[in-house]
C-alpha cells in the first residue's frame, strides 16, 4: 500500500503548510510563490538541494579558544545556516538525522569530528542509499567516540555502539537478541579513529581508522546470518533488516507529518523504503506530496529550534547581531533542545514533551524580544497566512484592536503558531 498522491494544485493554505513543515516557516511572499503549483513538482524542487551554504556565516568553530567556545560556535553556526542558509529543507533533515544518529557534545568535543559529522548529515540529508549513510555515520570519529566503538577490540568488546545501532538507528527494539548485540560488538571491533583526542587537541583533525589487529576475525552469528563478519557487514545487515524500513519511515513521519503518526501511512513509506532499498529521496518525495502530508495540519508541536528558526523565517530573516544568535542557540538549550546534545542517545522524543511551564515561558519571552522590545528587528508585519498557516484570521476577535507588533507577539505565543 503506497501513499495516495495529493492531486490538487496547492492552495495558499497548502503552500503555507508546506513551507512551515519543510522550511521551518516563511514570509507571505515565499508562500504565495508556491500557490497553484503541483504538489509533486513542489516536493521535487524542495528536495533538489545542493551543498551550498549560507554566505557570510560569522561563526567559525575553528576560531574557538576553548572546547566549550568551539562547541558554542558550532551550535550558533548551524542555527545561522538554518535561518539564513539557501536550503532550509536540507537543514531540517540534517536536524532530524542529528536526532536519529545521535552524538553529543558532552563526549564529542573536537572541532573536526563535529564538522565531519554535520557535513555528512547534510550530504546524506535526502540520500539515495540509507545503508551508505549509516555506514558513513558509523565511521565518523564523532560516532566512534560518542558510542565508544573506538574502545571496542578483539576479546575486549565494548557493546555500546552495537546495541544502539540496532535499538536506535536501524531495527528498533524487539527485533534482535542480546546475542546479536554481543556478536555485533565482536564484529565491529577494530573501527576506531586517530587524532583529536583529549581536551587540548580539540582543534586537531580526527580520522577514521580500521585497526585490523584489534578486529575479532572469528565467526559470528548476527540477525540470523553466520560468517566471519567485518564491521561494515554488521552495519549493512542492520540497515537492510526489513524492520529498519518501518523504524526510519516512522521517524520521517514524526518529523514531517504528525507527532503521533498514522501507522498505516508509516507502512506505506516503509514499503517504498524497502522497494527502493533505502532511497530516502524517493520516500521523502512521495511523503511530501501525499494526501497524508497535506491532510495533517497542526499536528506537530514545533520544537525549540523549529520555534526559533520558524519565528525568524516568518519575520523575513531580519539580520541579527552575532551575539544575539549565540544567545538564541543557548536559549534553544534552555527550552529543552541543546543543539547537538540531546539528553540521551535516544534523542528528543518531541511532541508534548517540548511543552511545560518553563519552556512556555521562554517561548513567550523570545516572542516579546522579537516583536515588542526596543531592540526588536524592524520588519514588515507578517500576515496571518505566514504566522498561522491560515488565511482566515483565527484570532481576529481577540487581537483585532491591537497594533501590528502586539498582534504578532500574541500570535507567536498562540497555540496556532506553536504548531506546524
Amino acid at each position, binding site marked *: 500500500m503506497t501513499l495516495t498522491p495529493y492531486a490538487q494544485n496547492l492552495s495558499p493554505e497548502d503552500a503555507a503548510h508546506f513551507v512551515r513543515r519543510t522550511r521551518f516557516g516563511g514570509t507571505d511572499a515565499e508562500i504565495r510563490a508556491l500557490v497553484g503549483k503541483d504538489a509533486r513538482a513542489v516536493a521535487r524542487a524542495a528536495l533538489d538541494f545542493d551543498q551550498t551554504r549560507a554566505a557570510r556565516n560569522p561563526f567559525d568553530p575553528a576560531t574557538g579558544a576553548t572546547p566549550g567556545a568551539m562547541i558554542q560556535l558550532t551550535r550558533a553556526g548551524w542555527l545561522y545556516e538554518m535561518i539564513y542558509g539557501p536550503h532550509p529543507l536540507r537543514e531540517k533533515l540534517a536536524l532530524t538525522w542529528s536526532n536519529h544518529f545521535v552524538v553529543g557534545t*558532552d563526549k564529542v568535543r573536537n572541532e573536526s569530528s563535529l564538522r565531519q559529522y554535520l557535513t555528512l548529515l547534510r550530504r546524506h540529508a535526502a540520500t539515495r542509499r540509507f545503508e551508505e549513510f549509516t555506514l558513513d555515520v558509523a565511521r565518523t570519529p564523532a560516532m566512534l567516540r560518542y558510542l*565508544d566503538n573506538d*574502545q571496542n*577490540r578483539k*576479546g*575486549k*568488546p*565494548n*557493546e*555500546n555502539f552495537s*546495541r544502539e545501532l540496532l*535499538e536506535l538507528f536501524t531495527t528498533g*527494539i524487539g527485533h534482535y537478541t*542480546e546475542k546479536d548485540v554481543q556478536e555485533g560488538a565482536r564484529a565491529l571491533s577494530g573501527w576506531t579513529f586517530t587524532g583529536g583526542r583529549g581536551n587540548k587537541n580539540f582543534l586537531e583533525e580526527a580520522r577514521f581508522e580500521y585497526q585490523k589487529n584489534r578486529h575479532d576475525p572469528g565467526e559470528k552469528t548476527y540477525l540470523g546470518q553466520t560468517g566471519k563478519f567485518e564491521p561494515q557487514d554488521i552495519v549493512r545487515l542492520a540497515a537492510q533488516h526489513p524492520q529498519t524500513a518501518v523504524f526510519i519511515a516512522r521517524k520521517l513521519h514524526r518529523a514531517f507529518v504528525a*507527532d503521533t503518526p498514522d501507522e498505516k501511512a508509516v507502512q506505506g513509506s516503509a514499503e517504498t523504503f524497502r522497494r527502493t532499498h533505502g532511497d530516502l529521496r524517493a520516500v521523502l518525495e512521495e511523503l511530501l506530496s501525499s494526501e497524508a502530508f497535506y491532510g495533517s495540519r*497542526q*499536528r*506537530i*508541536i514545533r520544537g525549540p529550534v523549529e520555534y526559533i528558526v520558524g519565528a525568524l523565517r516568518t519575520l523575513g530573516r531580519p539580520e541579527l547581531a552575532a551575539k544575539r544568535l549565540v544567545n538564541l542557540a543557548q536559549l534553544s538549550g*534552555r*527550552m*529543552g533542545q541543546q543543539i547537538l546534545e540531546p*539528553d*540521551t*542517545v*535516544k534523542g528528543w522524543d518531541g511532541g*508534548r*514533551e517540548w*511543552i*511545560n*511551564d*518553563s*519552556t*512556555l*515561558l*521562554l517561548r*513567550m*519571552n523570545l516572542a*516579546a524580544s522579537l516583536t*515588542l522590545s526596543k531592540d526588536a528587528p524592524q520588519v514588515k508585519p507578517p500576515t496571518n497566512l505566514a504566522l498561522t498557516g491560515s488565511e482566515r484570521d483565527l*484570532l481576529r*476577535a*481577540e*487581537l483585532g*484592536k*491591537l497594533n501590528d507588533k*502586539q498582534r504578532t*507577539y*500574541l500570535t507567536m*505565543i*498562540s*497555540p*496556532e503558531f*506553536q*504548531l506546524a
Partner: protein
Amino acid sequence: MSPTRRDFLKFSALAVAATTGMPGFLARAAAQAGGEKTLVVVQLTGGNDGLNTLVPYSNGAYYAARPRIAVSRQEVLPLTPNLGLHPSLKPLMKLWDDGQLAWMENIGYPNPNRSHFASMAIWHTADPAQAQADGWIGRIAEKIGDPFCASNIGGTTPQALQASEFTLPSIDPLDNFQIRVPANLEGAFNTMLSTPRQGEADYLRRATRQMMKNTARVQANVKKYKDGAVYPDTRFARQLRDAARLIAAGVGQRVLYVSLGGFDTHAGQRAEQDELLATLAGGLSAFQSDLEKQGLSEKVIVMGFSEFGRRVAENDSAGTDHGKGSVMFALGKGVKGGIHGDSPDLEKLSEGDIIYKQDFRGVYAEALNKWLGLSARDILGGDFGGPGWVA
C-alpha cells in the same frame, strides 16, 4: 490542611474539569496525600554502577572482576564490615552516622532490559510490561486530583510525571518561573486562551493556562524562603536549592523530581563516576542542611534510583557495560538508616550481571504507603512487599 490548599484543590479540580472537558473527573474524590510531607525523587540517568557506589570491599570476587576500576579498600568509606561508600560520597557520611541514610541492595525487576530507554520507561511507569503509558507520579497527581502536587525541577518533564489528564509542571529555574505579559495585553492574551480548540492546539492552550496558574501561585509564596545553606556550584545543586525553596514556600507539591545525568560509563569510568557521585553527594548534603535550617527536615525524604546497574566485570575500556540490578538510596530524618537487603552474590551471575532480589516497586510502595499516605496498590496496580526503609 490549610484553607488555601483546600481552596486550591477545589479550584484546580474545577479548572481542570472545565478545561479538559472531563466531567468524570469531578466525581472522583480528591485523595489527600499524607500531611504536608514531601518526597524528592532523584534520578541518576544513564545507569549508575551500584557496585562502585556501595562497595563490597571485603569481597575478593569484586576485586577480581574489576582490576582497574574497583574502589580500593584504602579508598572506601566503611559502613559495615563488608560494605562501604565510594570516597566521593563522603559528604553523606554524617547522615549515615545519624541514621538518616538508607541503602537498598539488589534492586531490579523481572526480565531486566538492558536498554536505557526501555528500562527507564519501566522505572517511570512502574510497569515492567509497560502497559501503563502514564508515569507513576502522574498517577499520584491524578489520585490526589491536583496537577500541582508533583513537579519536575529541570528542563524536560520525565515520563514518570506524565498523566493522561494533567500536565505536571517542570520548573527550571525557579527564578524564571514567572509570566511577564505587558499589562495592556493581558486581556487580549486571556481572551485568546479562552477559545476552545481541537487536538494539539487545545493541549497547548490548556498547558498555557495551567502554567499561568502555577507561576502565580509559586511567585506569591516563594519569598518565604531564606537561604539556609551554601550549595555547590553545580546545576544539580541549584535544582535541589529550588526544591528547598518550593518546599519552604509551601505551595503544595508532594513530590519533587530532580535528575542528574551522565552515568553511562562505558569507558574511563573512575574519572566520570567519581565526579558524578561527588556532585550527587555535595548537592544532597547541602540540601539536607538547608532543610534542617528551615525547620523542614522532618517533612522531606529523598529517594534515589538509576535505570540499571552495570556489568560486574569491567570492560577493556576501563568502564562497564549495561547491567541489571543495582542499589537505591534514601535519606532524611524520616528514613530508617542502614543497609536493607542482602548484597548480591558476585560469583553467581546471570549473563555477567547480578541477580536482583528486590523488586523496585516494593521500594516505591513503602514511600507511597508510609510517607505519602496513599494506597500503593492504587498507584502501582498490585501489592509489592519491600524493605522497611521509611521510619
